[in-house]
């Protein structure tokens, strides 16, 4: 398909999704499905995942699997807290970035210079991050230290000094808050759009802006600069790159260090949101970020979608556990749409157009979809509130479901995870 075709298809898809959300909201009466609060929460929860995912993207596009994102993120949180309480937010940002980058550097030394299996090195960093930061806390934050009197404990740093800037879109999301007014009318579609827009533009943390900007920036750097081409070639065929005079080691080093820095930035973001370092606040987001990146087919747009899906589901369940049951209705409608489309294409194609075996598979698939639709619909009608445990796993289940549908189209960089040695043929 041409670029234009894809672009239009995406737009149509987004529009259809919006319509569906609005419809489900009206039917279920769960306003949080498209409320500004939900989208604000989604953004806040998606950003650290997205940053970790971006970290993963940089590394893996250069051929280095980075399962150590979690550890690097932990380093980012600790150092952001440590520098932040002493010298303010900018220092926190720099320190967190650097700490993550150092984690990336360790990973680069192990994998690029020594050719260690990428998974092993990543696992070691995931041990090292929490271990080292806990150690640092035990040494620097113990009772009697200046930090402790500033409010530090073994599990937390003192709060970051100074404040960060959280701008809103003037008039629309702030002050007169037109969008907010529109949202509260609960009109079909219009209010939904207003809610979504307001959620994304109201009190935006400055780091959110930075993180969101990093997506197109990454796209530009990786796909539209010479350096990006070299980086991707290192992930596709480092031997070819080497033979053209590209310094593959250096490229990989840069990519993995940047990867760590982004993971660290994700940590900084968490610290900014909670105003201080809290032990364990990353809570596996490095792994989720990695998943979002794979989900997004090793592309910035895709990973943003993955992170957004996860953040949205998590935000919704945090705000309203009852709204989660509307996902049943959501699924049922999607399956219905699928069935209608299939049936139409079958009718237009006419019988006998396809090999028999394939046709049989089609019908089984459609039958399964129909059954699924009925079950989902029934669930939506009967289940009023799910046990909390089932609410908590909403984002994870959704991710799995989407992967089940879409995963076959994924293509990872060809030399991803491959040990590359200069001068050695493959």
């Amino acid at each position, binding site marked *: 398909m041409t670029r234009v075709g894809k672009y239009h298809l995406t737009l149509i898809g987004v529009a259809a999704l919006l319509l569906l959300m609005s419809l489900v909201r009206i039917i279920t009466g769960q306003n949080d499905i498209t409320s500004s609060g939900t989208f604000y929460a989604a953004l806040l929860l998606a950003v650290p995942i997205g940053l970790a995912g971006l970290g993963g993207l940089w590394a893996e596009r250069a051929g280095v699997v980075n399962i150590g994102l979690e550890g690097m993120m932990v380093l980012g949180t600790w150092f952001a807290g440590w520098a932040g309480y002493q010298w303010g937010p900018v220092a926190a940002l720099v320190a967190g970035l650097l700490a993550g980058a150092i984690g990336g550097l360790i990973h680069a030394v192990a994998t690029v210079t020594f050719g260690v299996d990428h998974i092993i090195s990543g696992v070691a960093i995931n041990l090292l991050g929490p271990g080292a930061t806990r150690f640092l806390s035990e040494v620097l934050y113990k009772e009697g230290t200046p930090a402790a009197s500033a409010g530090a404990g073994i599990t937390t740093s003192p709060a970051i000094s100074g404040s960060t800037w959280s701008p809103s879109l003037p008039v629309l999301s702030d002050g007169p808050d037109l969008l907010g007014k529109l949202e509260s009318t609960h009109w079909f579609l219009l209010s939904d759009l207003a809610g979504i827009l307001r959620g994304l533009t109201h009190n935006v943390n400055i780091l959110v802006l930075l993180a969101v900007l990093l997506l197109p920036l990454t796209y*530009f750097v990786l796909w*539209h*600069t*010479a350096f*990006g*081409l*070299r980086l*991707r*070639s290192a992930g*596709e*065929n480092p*031997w*070819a*790159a*080497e*033979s*053209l*005079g*590209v*310094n593959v080691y250096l490229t990989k080093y840069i990519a993995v260090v940047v990867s760590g820095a982004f993971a660290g930035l994700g940590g900084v973001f968490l610290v900014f949101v909670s105003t201080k370092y809290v032990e364990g606040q990353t809570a596996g987001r490095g792994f989720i970020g990695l998943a979002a990146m794979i989900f997004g087919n090793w592309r910035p747009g895709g990973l943003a979608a993955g992170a957004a899906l996860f953040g949205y589901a998590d935000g919704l369940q945090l705000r309203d556990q009852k709204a989660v049951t509307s996902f049943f209705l959501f699924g049922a409608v999607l399956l219905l749409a699928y069935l209608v489309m299939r049936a139409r294409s079958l009718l237009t194609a006419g019988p006998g157009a396809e090999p028999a075996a394939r046709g049989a598979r089609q019908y089984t698939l459609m039958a399964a979809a129909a059954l699924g639709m009925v079950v989902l619909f029934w669930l939506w009608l009967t289940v009023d509130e799910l046990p909390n445990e089932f609410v908590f796993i909403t984002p994870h289940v959704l991710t799995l479901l989407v992967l089940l549908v879409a995963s076959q189209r994924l*293509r990872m*960089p*060809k030399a991803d995870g491959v040990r590359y040695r200069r*001068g050695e*043929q493959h």
Partner: protein
Amino acid sequence: MSADTLATAKPAVELEGITKRFPGVVANHDIRITVEPGTVHAIVGENGAGKSTLMKILYGMQKPDEGTIKVNGEEVSFRSPSDAIAVGIGMVHQHFMLADNLTVLENIVLGAEPTRAGLLDTGAARTRIAKLAETHGLRVDPDRLVEDLGVGDRQRVEILKVLYRGARILILDEPTAVLVPQEVEELFQNLRELKADGLTVIFISHKLDEVLDIADAITVIRRGTTVAAMPRAEVTSARQLAELMVGSELPTPETRESTVTDRMAFQVAHLTVEAGGRLLLDDVSFDIHEGEILGIAGVEGNGQSELIEAIMGIRAAHGVITLGEQDVSSWPTLRRREAGIGYIPEDRHRQGLLLEASLWENRILGHQTRKPARKGIWIDRRASRSDTERIVKEYDVRTPGVDTLALALSGGNQQKLIVGREMSSEPKFLIAAHPTRGVDVGAQAAIWDHLRAARAAGLAVLLISADLDELIGLSDTIRVIFRGRLVATLDPSDVTPERLGGYMTGAIAGTEET
């Protein structure tokens, strides 16, 4: 431009006393070569003679232990390929060096990207590539993904890569290995044009007739040293060159009296393979008798791999495959192997070997369920070991022992191990895909002899090869595959490589309805 280069009359490349040692091997020893500008200079030598190593040194990918390199009369010392590129050297490697998931344009500009305001200037690159393609007759679509290209196109991309960097000295390491005669001729036409423009070409090949066709001067390397250097005019025959290369008499693959019996060994009927709505194999049928070698000729990518994989049961296909009396079409791979299908894969590293496992474990591969590898659910290590030792002896696999990792062996020795393994289960039917690719002449002769001996004992062989001499010399019948169809049946005794090439490229229309 060319007059200018000639006027200086300094050699384009001078290699003096180049020595390169690898642990345990001296790849190059005191090599001396002088390449005149504006000429095609061929370097020949058997496998492992050290040609590629030498070229990698000239291209800055490896550092020589001793010796000097002069380019256009100036002594140079390369730390990396970029240094070599800077003085106008470009290299097309023995194996394709392309990133499949990048476009042709990206592959070409990689490492020498035109930028505007920090961004990749694809517009400028596209114009430049179009111009190069125009002047040298190397046409490819710059926006296609390389993974969608055929070998000929890829070869052109490789050459464009080099020209794009403004190289005046081109190194081509076995560029013709994967090309059919027509494509070779096209390539040579390109090379002649380049030469006319004053470029210097260093050309490496095993194929001596090609060398005689294109070269202005020839250097022969044996066991890492230069044994002869002469202008083309002084060479009288390919045979003379070959004897210089190997230092002994040259073997040829020639079929002696026919051993074809009337007992049917293997049959394929109406085999069709489809992927993504495209027919990769279209209604292919053939049969092979005991004692017969059926050769399949074809340009790579015309369905050979799919045919092999369908026969092996690795790839889903429609049609009937019969081994002996049995219909094996629905059998899994393992059962087919157990029933007596042997398989020498086209890419030994991909499908034939566990590089990081020992030789005796490689002996087991594909024979997990049969003697001597198996004893009940167990692997019989002792028997496997001793049988591997037998193969090492009978097939002259040069290795310190059977516990050595396959990785440590040279390509030819790896291939001998595979041939030995596939033969030792006494198959009824053998698929031999490029059985001697990248193998030196000595090993080649041995492998041919083994194939012939097995054929005499009643083995049916499906031989797929890009080496037309090998095909013609070994086969009892040759079928040509083109775009997934068998288009011609030829008698090897009265076919020339040129005619074969005609069928393979579709230049001569098929004579056969299948």
